[in-house]
């Protein structure tokens, strides 16, 4: 098992696992989100080839009101 942080919330995952598999478990809404791991943007086309590692910090951002 590995421990990652999704928007600062601790998550346990089996090892090995890629980002696409983790997202399938977490089920974010539709395609209305974008991802960065350890402050590095990960494009949607790379989800399936991006492995998650113990201690990774994942930012999952959605559209929000802004000025």
């Amino acid at each position, binding site marked *: 098992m590995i421990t990652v942080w999704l928007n600062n919330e601790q998550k346990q995952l089996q090892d090995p696992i890629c980002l696409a598999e983790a997202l399938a478990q977490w089920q974010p809404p539709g395609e209305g989100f974008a991802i960065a791991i350890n402050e590095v943007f990960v494009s949607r086309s790379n989800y399936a080839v991006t492995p998650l590692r113990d201690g990774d910090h994942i930012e999952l951002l959605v*559209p929000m009101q802004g000025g």
Partner: protein
Amino acid sequence: MWQLADQTPESRLLIGSALYPSPSIMQDAIRASGAGVVTLSLRRQNPGAGGGNDFWALLRELDLHLLPNTAGCHSVREAVTTAQMARELFDTRWIKLEVIGDEYNLQPDPFGLLEATRELISQGFEVFPYCTDDLVLCEKLVDAGCRILMPWGAPIGTGKGLINPYALNTLRQRLPDITLIVDAGIGAPSHAAQALEMGYDGVLLNTAVAQASDPVTMARAFKHAVSAGRLAYEAGVMPARDMAQPSTPVLGTPFWKP
């Protein structure tokens, strides 16, 4: 119509999507403003919490051009990563670049802003930098490739209007070919009109409309103020002078004796 990067919006008002009393008032106010460009942001939301995509659906109904921001970013890396995420999520290369340097007045960090601007332009972004009214900074942003600059009128959310008209005027005079938009600090429609009268190409505001007692009516007021300010600029505002000059003809003045 005017040229804003690769777009030709009808209105010179750009409007924010935050702080409205309700989602439906947000929609109605943005429609009433006549704005063709709306700003929005990205925030954390854990799966299952809901909310973000509801807002997104409402905003898409308005069918406006989107200008995502990097609000809340305090470093070049945060801002660049947020911009990349926004580009994918909103399918636009436009980014309102904010790199905050001071928490008290949310003043942009000029050094980080310039560095992030260079990086994002090299990656193909159309950068709309939220900057101070410092001439040298603005010149360096133009040198970096910015076609648009967005100097503050006053700190975000203060509603103080154009607190340094001299500096804003200087920018307009020294950067005649750059699209200049006053972003932040506008509190009343008269402030927006003043910016347009000075020759600014547009204004971007949010709180002044969203936090008004009646946001929809205030949005309409800003729409008219922006149009009036632009018309005044095109018509040519008379120069101010110190000495009074009668407007009524002096010739034939009654009771006059030589």
